[in-house]
C-alpha cells in the first residue's frame, strides 16, 4: 500500500519527466540505429566517434554531467553553461531520447585500450613530469591549469595524449592566456578568470588575482591559440607518455 501511494505520488509529480525518472522510452536497438545519423549531424563535430573528438569522451559508462538519462536528455537540449557544449534546436523529444540511448550505447562499448602503467604514470605526474606544479588532483597541486581530478571520466586516452604532445591543439575553456600592460606600465600575464566590456580579472602565475578596469589598460593581448603548458613530445619517451596517459585516464574523481 505504502509503495502504491509512493508510486502514485511520484507519477503525479512528474510529467515529461515521467519518462526521465523511469528511464528512456526510446532505447531499443532500432532507436539506437535511428540515432546514428542524428549523432553524426549534431554531435560528431566535437565528440568524434565518441572517444576521439575534442569534447567529452562519450565511450564512458558514467558521464560526470549526466548521472541519469533524464539529465543527459536535458544536456542535449539545453547544453552545459560555461562549457563549449551548446544547446540544440531541431530535435524532437523522441529524437533526443534516441540520442540518449545512442550515447549510453557508446558508454557501454569497449573502453579505449590503455597501454601504459598507471602507477608509473602517477610517479611521472608528481616527479619527472612536474605536472602537479600546474594541475590539481584531489586538492593537491597547482592552479594554473585545469583540475585533473576526474579528467579520465571526461576525456579519452587519445585526447589526453594529444594534449601532452601538442597542448595548443585544444585549449580548455576558461584558460585563455592574456598579457596586459597597464597605463602606468605594469605588466601582468596570466589566465583570464572573467571579462566584460568594462573590466577583466586575471590570475597570474603566482596565483594572485588582478582585477583591472579596461580604462586603465594600455594593452590587452589575448593569446587564444597559446598554452603555457610545455609539450612533452621531447621530454618524455613514448613509454612514459603511455604511462602518464594511463594514470590520467585512471583519474575518475568521485565517479
Amino acid at each position, binding site marked *: 500500500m505504502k509503495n502504491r501511494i509512493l508510486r502514485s505520488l511520484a507519477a503525479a509529480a512528474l*510529467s*515529461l519527466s515521467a519518462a526521465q525518472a523511469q528511464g528512456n522510452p526510446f532505447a531499443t536497438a532500432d532507436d539506437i540505429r535511428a540515432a546514428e545519423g542524428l549523432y553524426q*549531424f*549534431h554531435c560528431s*563535430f566535437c565528440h568524434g566517434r565518441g572517444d576521439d573528438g575534442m569534447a567529452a569522451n562519450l565511450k564512458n559508462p558514467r558521464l560526470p554531467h549526466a548521472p541519469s538519462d533524464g539529465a543527459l536528455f536535458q544536456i542535449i537540449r539545453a547544453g552545459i553553461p560555461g562549457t*563549449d557544449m*551548446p544547446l*540544440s*534546436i*531541431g*530535435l*524532437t523529444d523522441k529524437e533526443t531520447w534516441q540520442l540518449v540511448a545512442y550515447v549510453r550505447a557508446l558508454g557501454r562499448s569497449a573502453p579505449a585500450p590503455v597501454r601504459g602503467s598507471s602507477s608509473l604514470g602517477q610517479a611521472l605526474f608528481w616527479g619527472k613530469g612536474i605536472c602537479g606544479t600546474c594541475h590539481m588532483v584531489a586538492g593537491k597541486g597547482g592552479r594554473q591549469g585545469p583540475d585533473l581530478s576526474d579528467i579520465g571520466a571526461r576525456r579519452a586516452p587519445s585526447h589526453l595524449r594529444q594534449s601532452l604532445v601538442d597542448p595548443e591543439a585544444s*585549449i580548455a575553456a576558461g584558460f585563455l592566456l592574456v598579457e596586459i600592460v597597464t597605463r602606468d606600465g605594469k605588466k601582468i600575464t596570466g589566465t583570464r578568470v572573467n*571579462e*566584460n*566590456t*568594462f573590466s577583466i580579472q586575471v590570475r597570474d602565475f603566482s596565483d594572485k588575482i588582478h582585477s583591472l578596469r579596461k580604462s586603465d589598460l594600455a594593452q590587452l593581448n*589575448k593569446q*587564444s*591559440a597559446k598554452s603555457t603548458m610545455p609539450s612533452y613530445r621531447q621530454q618524455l619517451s613514448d613509454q612514459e607518455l603511455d604511462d602518464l596517459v594511463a594514470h590520467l585516464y585512471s583519474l575518475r574523481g568521485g565517479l
Partner: protein
Amino acid sequence: MRQVIAILAAALPLAAQVIYEQIRNADQTPGNWLTFSGNYLGHRHSGLKLLNKSNAAAIKPVWVFQIDKTDKFEASPIVADGIMYISEPPSDVTALETKTGRPLWRYRRVLPEDLRVCCGKVNRGVAVLGDKVFLTTLDAHLVALDALTGNTVWDVEVAPYKTGHSMTVAPLALKDKIVVGIAGGEFGIRGFLDAYDAQTGKRVWRFWTIPGAGEPGVQTWKGESYKYGSAATWVTGSYDPELNLIYWGTGNPGPDWNGETRHGDNLYSDSVVALDADTGQLKWYFQFTPHDLHDWDATQVPVLVDLPFQGKPRKLMLFANRNAFYYVLDRSSGQYLLSKQYVRQTWAQTSLDPKGRPIRLPNTEPTENGVLVYPNSPGATNFYAPSYSPLTRLFYVNTRDEGGIFYSRREEYKEGNWFLAGRFISKPGEEARGAVKALEPTTGIVKWEFPLHSPSWSGVLSTAGGLVFAGAHEGDFFALDDTNGKLLWRFPTGGRIFANPISYLSEGKQQVAIAAGHAIFAFGLEGEK
C-alpha cells in the same frame, strides 16, 4: 443619490484608459510609454530630459522587481499613468506601480506541456488600449485582460499550437484593433499577420505572409513548398497614422538552412510588408534577403522618419537588417533608396544591385560539411529594438559580429515538427564582438560606435536628455552620450539582458526601466524612502 454616486466614483481606483489618439500622439505625453516602441513610428525615443548628460552619473536603481521565472525575460514594458504592465515568461502578466515597484495584480496562464517553441518560452510585452491589456501566449492565443484587475475579458485562439504555431510578440494596438504576429518559423507554419477587434476579440483581417495557390508571388516557391514556408511575424511592427499603413517585418523561409525544396525568392519571407491598417491589404513589400539560407529573419522594428533624402523631403523607413545591411526605403511606395553594410559580412557583395537585391557570393550556402559565413544566424542585429533620436537625427543600433558554420541536410516537412534542414554553430574559439553604433540615417555612415565585449541582445533607447541607454550581454546597463558615444553611466545588473529599455515619469520623476536577468530594474535619481 447623485452625491453618493459622485463619492463612489471618486473612490474608484483609476483603470488605464488609453485611447487611440493618446498613442497616436504619444510624443506629446512622454510621461507615459503607451506602445511597444514608445510611438507608432518605431523610434524608442523618450522626450524626457530630467535625466541628462549633466546628472547621468548620479543615476541609481529606484526599485527592482523580481519575477519567479528562469526563462529569458524579454519584455518591453508599457507604462500608463504610473502603472507598468509587463509580460513575464512564459505567458504571464504583472501590473506594477512605478512609484514603488509593488505589484497590483498578476495573470498566470496554465499552458499545455506539449508546446512547440523554438528559442525559449518567452514573451516580448503587452499592449494597452481602452481599459484592457492585451497578451499573446505560447499556445497561440490572444488574451484581453481587465487593466484594473487582470481578469480575463476574452481569450481567442489565433492558431492551433500543435501545428507549430506559438506567439511571443507584443501586440500593436491601433484605432479599435489589436494587431498580432505569429511565431513558428522553425516548424514550417504558413505565416500571417492578424488584426482583432479590441472589444470582442473577433478577427477583422488576416494577411498571409506567403501567397496562396494562384495568388501573385506563389510562383516564387517551388512546388507546394509555399504551404509550409514559414515567414513568421514575431516582432512588433510600426504604423504610420497619416498613410494608415502598418509596416511589419517577416521571418525566415522554412526550412531554415536548405533551399533545395523551395527554389525561388520565397515571397514574402525576410521582407517588410506595408499593409492597409483597416483591411490588411498589401500596399507594397520589399524583400531584404531573397531565398534566405542563413535564418536571417527581417523581424526588426521598422523606424519611420521624415527627412530630406538627396535634397528632397521624403517619408522614409530605416531598417537595420539581420543580414548585415542597413536600408533606407521610401515608406509611401516601398522604393529602395539606399543600403550600406554596417557589420562584417562575407556572404554578399558590399554593393547591392540597383533595386536593393543582394548579390550573393559563391560558396556561402550551407553544406553537409559546414561553411563559415559572417554573420551567423543570430545576425548583425536581431529582435531587440533600435532607436532614432529626432534631436541628433541619428539611428542607434546594438550590433553583433560573430561568424557561424552553417550545415544543411535534407528534411521532410511533418506538421508540428521542427523544420530546419540544417543547423549552425558559432565559430569555435572565436571571441565574438558587439557594438552600439550610431548611423547617419540617410547615408548609413557610422558616426560613432561603443564597442562591447560580446554581442548583446539588448535594445536601445535614446532620450531628449541626450542619453542613449543600452545593455551588454554580461548584464551591464549603461548610458552613452548621444552625440559621441562616450560612456556617462553604467550599472551592473548581474543578469543577462534580452530586452528593450523604456522611460517614463513616476510622480514627476523620470525613470528608465529594463528587464535584466529575472527582474525589472527601474533607475532614476532618487530611490525609495
